């Protein structure tokens, strides 16, 4: 019964999304307030219906209803409850449902929090989002129905892929999708503005908090995925340039460019066309990512089952949505004014350079990700593009970007003076170079690559300090000065410091990590990074749905001082009977100790992989700081005090809303 209710809810949702795409849009065209007024209630109904379908699927998982094909394929009665819930998005059909669920949630947020928008604008925005949800609902119902019955019903389920049985699975996909789909808001705002011909500073100010909110979610989502890969895959790596990772990284890069470009459009009215194009691009890349992941055109460690019919459907949808919006762009953009002029050296030009670098970076990730597909499609052979390509491309792009990150915030709008900037930043430059060399000298090895990475980190910190000092200097004391700073500006500084922490972590772990694969018998010891690892014991333990060989690894330092004891596992899950390594990690601010079990040899000894990873947690800490910066920026009072700002700008549609 419950699956049927979910099914009905999905069909109704499709009908409502059809209404939502058509009626308010028509109303906006005809300036009919009653029709436009339907946008918000329809968006709310859509959320309730999709939410009901989502809950129905979750209930089927919780109740172990193996008469539902999707539940039988992705769950098992022995699966612990949290993973039965996460199992909802453990496969293709449920991932799509999660996607639509997130879209409906963003729509609800727009409907709730955008009452101050002119009615026609809001109607168009919600209608555009309604169209996107219609496409995905149709896709689900036609090719990937999560509620399909399995008759006769299975006695037990095939279990969730053991790789996915991890707390990471509970948090990572919802957060990632929240970010992915969140760019649909900026996209819908842009399409609405192109349709209505109202590309102005107001539009940029309305779009900014939504874009930043989506970017924050995406940042956290990618971070969670990276942490998960780090401890779950057992290779000690945190980023693999896998096509599926790239699929989430591309919208992130484009979204970062968009946030910066929106700042210029809001403050100076420039870059309007470019900003709109970026908003379309960021969401298009989210859709492209969905296509790449769901169609199976690329092989990836995230091996999803692929079905050509599904791929074709998403591709058609992709062409329709992106093609239509780019056509609209080509038609409307020429009529949009250029905004205010700016000098060759100014905050505008520096932000433009930032945008160019970020977009080139996005393009090179796209190229690297799709290159195997291009060659294969042209019959030129099969290749795979690996980390060496991305590393080679990324360092030369990120170095100037980080340099600009230091200069940009200090430069003036419209026209900046080079000598003045040089004087203000000379100490930052000196301090960052000295700190870079000193850090490497202390760590015991100086290399060019590390110098570049560490310099980026110190340069950001030093220039943020200069910027902060310049801004609070005029105030009577530091506390007053800090208090007077706009929240958005503090947010920017915090986010930039996050990049510094990230760059520091990456540089340190790359240069100074130690990795050792050793053969160990019980009571064997080995030394890695100044710590002594002793294998005390390996014994068999029973988990809820797996059996594991659990090792006891005692770690000491400086003679016999105990540091900690780690318990890495080698698990075999009963249903799918594939072995999984469960690495054990002693995390710390200055280093992680990482132990992962390999194979057992015939002699009874174990292959054990041990890593000493200095400052690796700074990578994710940096992402978290970036996200906090984003949250601060999005929470700026300026965006909430919009009502008063609106009152000062004449809005023809305002009367209709009242």
């Amino acid at each position, binding site marked *: 019964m419950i699956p049927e209710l979910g099914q009905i809810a999905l069909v109704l949702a499709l009908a409502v999304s059809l209404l939502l795409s058509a009626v308010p849009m028509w109303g906006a065209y005809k300036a009919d307030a009653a029709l436009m007024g339907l946008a918000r209630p329809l968006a709310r109904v859509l959320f309730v219906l999709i939410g009901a379908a989502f809950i129905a699927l979750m209930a089927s998982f919780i109740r172990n209803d193996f008469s539902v094909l999707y539940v039988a394929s992705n769950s098992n009665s022995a699966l612990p409850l949290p993973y039965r819930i996460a199992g909802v998005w453990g496969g293709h059909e449920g991932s799509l449902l999660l996607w639509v669920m997130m879209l409906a949630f963003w729509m609800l947020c727009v409907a709730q929090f955008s009452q101050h928008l002119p009615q026609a604008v809001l109607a168009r925005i919600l209608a555009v989002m309604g169209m996107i949800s219609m496409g995905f609902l149709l896709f689900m119902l036609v090719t990937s129905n999560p509620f399909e019955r399995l008759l006769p019903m299975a006695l037990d389920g095939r279990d969730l892929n053991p790789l996915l049985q991890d707390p990471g699975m509970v948090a990572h996909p919802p957060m990632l999708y929240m970010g992915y789909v969140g760019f649909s808001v900026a996209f819908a705002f842009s399409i609405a503005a192109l349709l209505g011909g109202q590309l102005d500073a107001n539009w940029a100010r309305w779009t900014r908090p939504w874009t930043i909110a989506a970017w924050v979610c995406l940042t956290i989502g990618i971070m969670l995925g990276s942490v998960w890969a780090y401890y779950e895959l057992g290779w000690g790596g945190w980023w693999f340039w896998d096509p599926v990772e790239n699929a989430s990284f591309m919208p992130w890069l484009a979204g970062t460019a968009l946030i910066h470009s929106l700042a210029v459009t809001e403050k100076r009215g420039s870059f309007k066309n470019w900003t709109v194009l970026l908003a379309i691009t960021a969401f298009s890349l989210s859709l492209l990512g969905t296509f790449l992941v769901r169609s199976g055109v690329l092989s990836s460690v995230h091996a999803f089952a692929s079905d050509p019919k599904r791929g074709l459907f998403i591709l058609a949808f992709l062409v329709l949505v992106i093609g239509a919006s780019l056509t609209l762009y*080509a038609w409307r953009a020429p009529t949009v004014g250029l905004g205010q002029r700016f000098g060759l050296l100014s905050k505008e030009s520096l932000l433009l350079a930032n945008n160019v670098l970020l977009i080139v970076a996005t393009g090179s990730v796209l190229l690297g990700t799709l290159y195997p597909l291009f060659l294969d499609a042209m019959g030129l052979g099969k290749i795979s593009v690996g980390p060496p390509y991305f590393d080679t491309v990324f360092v030369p792009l990120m170095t100037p970007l980080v340099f600009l990150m230091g200069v940009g915030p200090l430069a003036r709008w419209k026209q900046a003076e080079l000598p003045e900037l040089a004087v203000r930043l000379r100490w930052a430059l000196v301090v960052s170079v000295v700190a870079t060399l000193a850090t490497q000298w202390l760590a015991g090895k100086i290399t060019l690559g590390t110098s570049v990475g560490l310099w980026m980190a110190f340069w950001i910190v030093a220039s943020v300090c200069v910027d902060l000092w310049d801004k609070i200097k005029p105030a009577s004391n530091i506390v007053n000065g800090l208090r007077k700073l706009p929240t958005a500006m503090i947010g920017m500084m915090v986010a930039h410091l996050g990049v510094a922490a990230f760059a520091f972590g990456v540089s340190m772990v790359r240069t100074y990590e130690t990795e050792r694969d050793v053969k160990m018998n019980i009571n064997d010891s080995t030394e890695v990074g100044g710590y002594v690892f002793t294998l005390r014991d390996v014994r068999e333990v029973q988990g809820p749905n797996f059996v594991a060989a659990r090792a006891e690894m005692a770690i000491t330092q400086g003679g016999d001082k105990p540091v900690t004891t780690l318990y890495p596992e080698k698990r075999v899950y009963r249903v799918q009977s594939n072995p999984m390594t469960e690495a054990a990690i002693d995390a710390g601010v200055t280093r992680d100790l990482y132990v992962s079990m390999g194979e057992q040899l015939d002699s009874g000894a174990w292959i054990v992989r041990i890593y000493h990873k200095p400052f690796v947690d700074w990578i994710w800490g940096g992402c978290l700081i970036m996200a906090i910066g984003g949250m601060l920026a999005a929470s700026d009072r300026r965006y909430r005090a919009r009502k008063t700002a609106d009152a000062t700008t004449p809005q023809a549609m305002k009367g209709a809303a009242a």
Partner: protein
Amino acid sequence: MKRFLLPLGIFLALAVFLGLGLKHDPREVPSPLIGKPAPAFNLPTLGDAQRSLRKEDMLGKVWMLNVWASWCGACREEHPVLVEFARRNVVPIYGLNYKDERPDGLAWLRAGGNPYVESLFDHDGRIGIDFGVYGVPETFVIDQQGVIRYKQIGPITPEVLRDKIEPLLRQLHG
């Protein structure tokens, strides 16, 4: 106006490639052995350890070599298709029983039917390695001169037989 069409143009070009990409399977790895002589072998048969078959014994006819094992799950899916195909007597099918135990292999053939003229018994998987086998099942079509003309990775399906193997066999048989 023209420069504003550029993004659309770039996207459409990309979409064409994505469409072409849908037709290709990224997991399909071309075998370097296609168009090359099959590796030499001299293996006992599964049914009779005293009898053995060499590559030279097979020259002069087109034949199909199917790599299988009783422990292989996908082979269960493939087996009925092969049994059906063998009944039509289009081409002699030989099996390569890969890294298996003799009783297990024989029991499997008793249970599921035997589509093979003979099965070679490759207990240690050495000949499998020579053939570049990395997943079971795999299937090779070998011509009169002992040259490998086709390799199927993964189970044979009625579609593969109809669209790839049978046209090739017709061509080889002239």
